[in-house]
């Protein structure tokens, strides 16, 4: 049997395709079993890959795809430089955590290994893990205040860690000596080696049974098949150009700078061209995206969107894209720009921009059910360490706020409340699990009211958490490294509103302990005394006995004019507790009370008044407005739209309630609304950054060039 597409018969292909997926699963099992660390086993921050001889990741494991992509970049480097010296032989494995070669940041490390059939190298295997600490000035991943990569954990370019099956203790010694957690890193290194060994043996068995050429052909055909499928989907969509602008707020050297990721995506036939030119110049440290990470996050965003139709094969996706970016910008940085927070910083700005452009393309192609405003916004994150009364040490990363965000609204339905992200296995531990493991007590962990971005389809509600130290005198070290506190990080669509921003704050010296002893539990900070402190989003602090830590993870952004949302759906959110009666009126024009439900006549009047008030609002003149896309007709009154019958207004942050009103104090951004001059319906909203506010490295011309649409 030979198929039309040549080479290998379809039955053998299908059997071997599935067997290779199974081999990747076996590798993932070995990785997780041997490591056993909470990062690996609870957060699934690890992955494996099977790669072809060119170092393209053909099959990836079930978790975070960027580890697998990093393996590919490592293989590229090794194949191009090490053939003669130190040589690439059967039984060798190579280790790296160098962001300029492979991984998105230094705390991600990969081990890759060539696979031989007799003397022929037919491919590679790889495994990556996010380790607890890879050195540098600050414990954990982020090097606070780093002014270059020299201030961060020192990257290790690819080195031969295993030679002819023997772990090299000199290299291992070098690797472990860089870290504050050498014992855990040693186990994680063995886990990566074990995963490679398992996968290698199994592929070698397949080569013996089916022949090396057959396995090569299967690798090739998996990639071409995914490429064909993706090109076919793209070919059915009209060609076009879509653009977006996303922001990264970064506090460094006593000020917050805003970094702009500017993307123009062109779809022509079955190919996508990504042009990031005009993005902000690179930062000195911490947040930058190296070229491998840029490519990795573009591919990751596409795999999330098209995962419904194509199997997880990054190499196939890579073949349908071309990426252009300016060297020296924060989305394609030059050495020695620092990268220590690489997986949750600039990469997310890239991820948001790509998701947004692709979703706009899918809407244009008549596939709104596949489109989403964003999977997950920037994350509020903190690392902590404490010593218990018995001398027991605690350390970890607090991810509840980041992972518990709401996802963005989708083209045909709401976003998911406290359900962000595109990786199926990502989860947060139970409150009880965390209280058993860590020295704190949660006062609450709940869906944050009024946090969802309003819209015809609303975003998902975010999460909010408050906790106090418990069983320790204090939590002695809290390293804050959050983005998305100064501006909403996921763009709303078609007149929807942004979701809430992230927040990390403290109530110092509260009376909570006293009140609990009296049998009072309250979440109203106004009743708890003490002093409210909003710390800078990057920095180090501590949590003393009566201090409360508050964290809110953003809500998802909305899609479509909120005044068009079905009143029953709005009221459903009120009943479910994610929307207040006040916000139902302010954001959606729905008038009602908890006792008697919706007041239909008053709602009609309110909605009409709000449309009218938009039409009467003073016109706003941002510089970039002309470059944004304009729909042909108004979705409400069906009037044709053109520049002369639309209004551009500013929507005051203060009106948007809990989670966004704080932005009114910062005055960095304006929220701009474009609406139909006939009926007042919003068809476009976006954050606008006036030129007088500084963006490092962005010129006046670049800022004037316009903001997506």
């Amino acid at each position, binding site marked *: *049997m*030979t198929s*039309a597409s040549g080479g290998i018969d*379809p039955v053998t*292909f*299908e*059997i071997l395709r*599935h*067997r290779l997926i*199974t081999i990747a699963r*076996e590798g993932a*099992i070995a990785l997780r*079993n041997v490591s*056993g*660390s*909470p990062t690996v*086993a609870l957060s699934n921050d690890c992955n494996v890959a099977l790669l072809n001889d060119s170092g393209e990741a053909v099959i990836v494991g079930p978790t975070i795809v960027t580890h697998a992509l990093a393996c590919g970049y490592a293989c590229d480097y090794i194949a191009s430089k090490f053939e003669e010296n130190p040589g690439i032989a059967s039984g060798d494995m190579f280790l790296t955590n160098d962001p300029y070669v492979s991984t998105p940041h230094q705390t991600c490390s990969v081990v890759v290994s060539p696979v031989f059939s007799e003397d022929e190298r037919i491919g590679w295997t790889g495994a990556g893990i996010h380790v607890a600490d890879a050195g540098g000035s600050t414990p954990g991943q982020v090097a606070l205040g780093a002014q270059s990569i020299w201030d961060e954990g020192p990257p290790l370019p690819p080195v031969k860690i295993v030679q002819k099956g023997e772990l090299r203790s000199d290299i291992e010694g070098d690797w472990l000596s860089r870290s504050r957690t050498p*014992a855990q890193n040693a*186990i994680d290194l063995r886990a990566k080696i*074990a995963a490679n060994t398992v996968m290698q043996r199994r592929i070698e068995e397949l080569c013996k049974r089916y022949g090396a050429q057959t396995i090569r052909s299967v690798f090739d055909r998996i990639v071409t098949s995914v490429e064909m*499928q993706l090109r*076919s989907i793209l070919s059915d969509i009209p060609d076009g150009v879509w653009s977006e602008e996303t922001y990264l707020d970064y506090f460094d050297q006593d000020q917050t700078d805003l970094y702009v990721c500017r993307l123009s995506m062109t779809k022509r036939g079955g190919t996508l061209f990504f042009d990031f030119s005009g993005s902000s110049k690179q930062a000195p440290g911490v947040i930058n995206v190296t070229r491998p990470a840029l490519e990795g996050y573009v591919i990751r965003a596409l795999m999330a*969107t098209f*995962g*419904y139709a194509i199997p997880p094969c990054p190499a196939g996706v890579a073949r349908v894209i071309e990426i252009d970016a300016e060297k020296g910008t924060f989305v394609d940085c030059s050495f020695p720009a620092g990268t220590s927070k690489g997986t949750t910083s600039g990469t997310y700005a890239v991820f948001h921009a790509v998701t947004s452009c692709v979703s706009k393309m899918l809407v244009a192609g008549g596939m709104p*059910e596949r489109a*989403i405003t964003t999977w997950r916004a920037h994350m509020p994150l903190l690392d902590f360490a404490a010593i218990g009364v018995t001398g027991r040490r605690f350390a970890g990363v607090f991810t509840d706020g980041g*992972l*518990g965000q709401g996802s963005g609204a*989708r*083209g045909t*339905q709401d976003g*998911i*409340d*406290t*359900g962000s*992200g*595109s990786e*199926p296995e990502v*989860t*947060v531990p*139970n409150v*009880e*699990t965390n209280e*058993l493991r860590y020295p704190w*007590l949660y*006062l*609450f*962990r*709940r*869906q944050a009211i009024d946090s969802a971005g309003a819209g015809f389809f609303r975003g998902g509600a975010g*999460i909010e958490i408050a906790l106090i130290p418990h*069983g320790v005198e204090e939590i002695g070290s809290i390293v804050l490294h959050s983005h998305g506190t100064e501006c909403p990080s996921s763009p709303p669509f078609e007149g929807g509103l942004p979701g809430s921003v992230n927040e990390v704050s403290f109530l110092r010296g509260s009376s909570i302990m006293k009140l*609990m002893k009296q*049998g*009072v*539990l309250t979440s109203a900070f106004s009743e708890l005394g003490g002093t409210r402190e909003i710390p800078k989003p990057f920095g180090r602090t501590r949590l003393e006995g009566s201090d409360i830590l508050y964290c809110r993870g953003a809500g998802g952004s909305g899609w479509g004019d909120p005044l068009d949302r079905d009143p029953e759906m709005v009221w459903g959110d009120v*009943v*479910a*507790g994610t929307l207040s009666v006040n916000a139902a009126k302010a954001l959606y024009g729905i008038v009602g009370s908890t006792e008697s439900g919706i007041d239909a006549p008053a709602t009609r009047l309110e909605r009409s008044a709000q449309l009218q008030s938009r039409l009467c609002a003073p016109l706003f003149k941002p510089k970039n407005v002309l470059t944004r896309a304009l729909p042909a007709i108004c979705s409400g009154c069906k009037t044709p739209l053109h520049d002369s019958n639309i209004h551009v207004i500013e929507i005051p942050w203060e009106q948007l309630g809990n989670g966004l009103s704080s932005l009114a104090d910062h005055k960095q951004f304006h929220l701009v609304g474009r609406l139909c001059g006939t009926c007042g319906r919003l068809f476009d909203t976006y954050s606008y950054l006036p030129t007088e506010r500084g963006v490092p490295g962005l010129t006046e011309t670049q800022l004037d060039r316009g903001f997506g649409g």
Partner: protein
Amino acid sequence: MTYTVGIDVGGTFTDCVVVDQAGTAWMDKSFTTPEDLSEGIIDALRNTCGHLGIEAEKVLQECQVFGVGTTSLINRVVSRRGARVGLITTKGHEDAVLIGRVVARSEGLAEQNRFDVAAWNKPEPLFVPGSVRGVTERIDSLGTVVASLNEAEVLAAISDLKAIRVDSIAVALLWSFLNPTHEQRVRDLINQAAPEIAVNISSEISPSLGEFERTNTTLLNAYLAPGAANDFAQMERRLQEYGLGCGLLLMQSNGGLAWANELQRKPVYGLAAGPIGGVVGVQKLARAASQSNVVCTDMGGTSFDAGLIIDGQPIFSSQSIIERHRIQVPSIEVTSIGAGGGSIATVDELTGELHVGPRSAGSTPGPVCYGNGGIEPTVTDANVVLGRIDPRSFWGGRRELDWHAAVESIQRRIAEPLGIDCQSAAAGIIDIVDARMADLLRTMTIATGRDPRDFVLYAYGGAGPVHVGSYARQLGASLIVVPLCAPVQSAFGIAIGNFSRHLSQSQPMKEPYDSESIDNVIEQLISQARHDWESAGLDPNLATYQTSVDMRFSYQVHEIRVPIEAGAGQIGIIDGFVDKYEDSFGSGAAFRSAGTEMLTFHLVSTLPAANYKHSIRSAEGRPAPSPGKLRKRDVFFEGQMVQTPVMNFMDLPPDQSIDGPVIIESANTTVVVHPGQSAMTDHNANLLVRTQ
């Protein structure tokens, strides 16, 4: 004569096994009657009793055990026919179920929907919208009361919930499994203020760490309990009308039997009953044959279900997902993939790739050869084309299959697009589905740290014995067992089941341990089990009691269940843990210097339900095979049609090995023995196939 009866009520068929006190087994099946399951049960029993030559009513009167495994509970969850439930929880944590640890958005989805990210959503919660009330109270991780229970708030919550007409209230407070006093007080207050409302408290339903799963389990129990009580009472009453002389027993997810009136209080413990019975039956047979590591495989119409027995014990999981709701009850772990007789084969128009499943034609319309309107070729159609399934003897000849339709459909939809002949296309479909099953089994076995070649492979269900010869060879298993009751293996497991109780209690502790605390938890669990047996009218002195504890290294997350041997002491328990850890994760993997932690203690107590012989024999005698009976038909092996002997299961000469290729048929199943394999029956009339 006394009998034990096992019934497995499935979506399409109701299976029945009757075993007499001499250990002789009869079996048959009938169509399930969804409106009143007892009708289908009686039909299946009548069909079976036809083979015994006595009246079904007589078996009912004289039976010692009448056990039923049913999907009726799961059907209630699927069709959302449950009670109106409200929830009282700790203030500040009202959204634990809605947050669902974030992962609720993607858990429990079918394989094909797992990466359809834009379509993810969380499951609808089991409580009435707007019926969650948080009350002031707080207990910490040591079980200490940090904030006392505010009873006025509890009364206000009860009053609210009464106003929205809930039938049932679930109470799930943080850390209640360590210190249940607040939950118990809330229950008492509900009983006083609203005696008409049923109450379920989490410290009784699921006393284990993890508020999301514990709350969900309690909610699901509250949701199911009223309907389950009706269903079970109705079934018992109807069977009594037919003359049932003993109490009705039901299969639980843990593989043991429980009286219907017990399970109706904790229906959440009976949700996974269906495929569990098969594993229980295999466990019994494997023990009799001194086989300690076994893979149990059940291939039916829509799915391939696999379970493992390690060192003679089924693998248990403490959590499972029911209709996308994660719950925390002990159940025998069964992993499913969408590979069954009804799995549909397609050729991708764009890439020319051949895919099999996970879409299934199910039982309606079913495979093309059923003639019920199915047009897409399935695995069963491929088996018919290849001569592995005889269209005339399917289901004992009660249903003739349409060979021509199967050929036509594979020819047109698979062979022509691929440019190959029909037989090659059918063989390709079978090879792909067999390889997928082998891949699953391999992953499952290596996840336990064991070599798949060291397992004995049992195959049952309608299609398992047709395919096992191939997936066993790929796995490297050297011995296959097709049990006597293969077509009705779950019913068999139920018929020979024991009473069983699994009790758990989370009690987190860190090394160095306080031996007295360990002893106290164990004593408390044993005393609870003895009390349960007495309440069920059974003698606790006849039961066995096995305790174990989930342990892990500090800073790590793998929990391993370690048996606690009497008198082992904490050193013995820790050593047992380290040994088992290295057994699973490799020598040297143990992170001993980190210290260990104990989390949840478990007690498994079993009590025999009936006296039966270990050697189960077939109902029919074993007449000497007559050479004249030997039939032959063309069957596809190794690339060509081969004239292959066809033998009746009952005609196999005892203790004599028959070399493949050979087809061995019984009323409800077909065993395909490949070239290079050989078959013989053991003294209990199970078929053994050696692969090398």
